[in-house]
């Protein structure tokens, strides 16, 4: 580690920040205590609002808000201490195996190891249920159901989403949004990292103007990333709950529907114990949708199956879909919180060649979130 800036142990900075980083890492902070209390309040209140899938006490929402406010206060304290970070304190590893690598970078990679396990757990859950519970389409075609009685089966969200370009549109747009945001954040890194001289040559500005020019540019790239992340979550909400009106000419293509239906309006929810969909309606398209080699078809031909609409309990399938993509969405949200701080700091000229690695290390997380999406997208949206 750098010996130029030893801890000054007589130095007692305020636990509320800001911190003087030339004295080493913060030695006092209220942020951990405040944030922990906030998380506790949040989890407590949330469990009072909802009990067993029903709204039990809407009044407790104020507790949820209080929790979020307290967490925010904790974050603000944390950031207030960090705002002055300019790269003067950047300890490096000694010895094998991470010799000469910044501690922060190692810590970030170690953290990503645990994130990998989080998503592996979610994927294991998904694989187990997908393989263990009969697929709704197979149940439908097997004819082992009767109209009016719900059957338990696994309905992958992809079956609904990939059935129509209009359902797929938000998810597909999100994929591109994340990839573009991955690109904008490396551009932010590249811009911040460039030496003053090189920067001045590259953008043909005076050396004295480099700082302000660079600040604007870095903030622009970080801000674009933040915007794309916001777009991601907005589209997600559209896809889950809100839906979106389709422009006139497209309505025709969308089977005459004037909007992109949300999963919620299609009935694909975690509470869907009696899910019905036209894909499971023998009368849909006059029955042309039923493959002729299926058991259902032969049964209906033989008159042993009356046909009708299959009702399905798809709660497990919907839960795995919403919780897995939701966990990913929470990671995007976490990234947005970090990005809003970084954009603010970038606007104030906080990033230059000496501390541009901060953007890189945040970027590792951000790219990881993108990576997870690379897996989530095919498995939950397409297949």
């Amino acid at each position, binding site marked *: 580690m750098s010996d130029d800036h030893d801890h000054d142990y007589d130095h007692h900075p305020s636990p509320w920040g800001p911190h003087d980083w030339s004295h080493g890492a913060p030695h006092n902070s209220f942020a951990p205590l405040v944030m922990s209390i906030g998380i506790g309040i949040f989890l407590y209140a949330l469990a009072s609002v909802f009990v067993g899938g029903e709204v039990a006490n809407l009044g407790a929402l104020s507790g949820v808000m209080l929790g979020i406010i307290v967490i925010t206060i904790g974050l603000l304290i944390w950031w207030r201490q960090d705002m002055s970070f300019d790269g003067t304190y950047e300890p490096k590893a000694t010895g094998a*195996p*991470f010799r*000469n*690598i910044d501690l922060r*970078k*190692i810590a970030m*990679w*170690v953290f*990503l*190891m645990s994130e*990998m*396990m989080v998503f*592996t*757990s979610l*994927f*294991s*859950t*998904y*694989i*187990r249920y997908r*393989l*263990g519970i009969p697929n709704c389409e197979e149940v439908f075609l097997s004819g082992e159901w009767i109209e009016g009685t719900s059957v338990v089966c696994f309905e992958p969200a992809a079956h609904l989403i*990939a059935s129509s*370009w209009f359902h*797929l549109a938000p998810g*597909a747009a999100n*994929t*591109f949004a994340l*990839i*573009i945001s*991955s*690109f904008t954040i*490396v*551009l932010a*890194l*590249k811009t911040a*990292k460039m030496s003053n001289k090189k920067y001045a040559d590259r953008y043909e500005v005076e050396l004295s103007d480099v700082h302000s020019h660079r600040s604007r540019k870095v903030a622009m790239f970080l801000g674009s990333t933040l915007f794309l992340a916001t777009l991601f979550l907005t589209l997600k909400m559209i896809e889950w709950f809100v839906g979106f009106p389709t422009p006139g000419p497209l309505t025709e293509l969308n089977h005459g529907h004037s909007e992109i239906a949300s999963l919620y309006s299609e009935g694909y929810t975690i509470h869907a114990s009696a899910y019905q969909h036209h894909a499971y309606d023998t009368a849909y398209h006059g029955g042309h949708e039923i493959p002729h080699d299926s058991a259902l078809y032969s049964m209906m031909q033989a008159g042993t199956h009356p046909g009708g609409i299959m009702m399905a309990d798809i709660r497990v399938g919907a839960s795995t879909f919403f919780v897995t993509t939701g966990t990913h969405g929470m990671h995007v949200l976490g990234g947005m919180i970090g990005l809003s701080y970084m954009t603010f700091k970038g606007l104030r000229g906080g990033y230059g060649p000496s501390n541009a690695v901060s953007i*890189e290390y945040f*970027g*590792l997380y951000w*790219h*990881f979130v*993108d*990576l997870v999406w*690379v*897996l989530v*997208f*095919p498995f939950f949206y*397409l*297949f």
Partner: protein
Amino acid sequence: MAHYTILGKDPYWMNFWGLMILTAIEVGAVGVELGDTITMSILIGIAIPKFIMIAAIFMHLYGDADSKILTMTALFPAFFIIVMVFFIGLTSPGAATELPAWCRPGYWT
């Protein structure tokens, strides 16, 4: 930070467009009716290069002095991931009496 170029261009820029194209193919493959097996193969076939491209170029696991050791770090959980997917994802519950014959004494003698 990248110290190399791809076909003489900025690697981030090249990578970005590569990813965009791959994703477009992916979405397109689902739109066209190709049957489950082919669709699945295309999806997996595209997810892997996308995965590698993001990790190698955007996350700097290629081309930096610390790339090799950090790649090893990133691969460290592989064993535990495989164990979890096999033990949790790919087993299904069953009665003990369904123990397969190869687990029973006498099968090997």
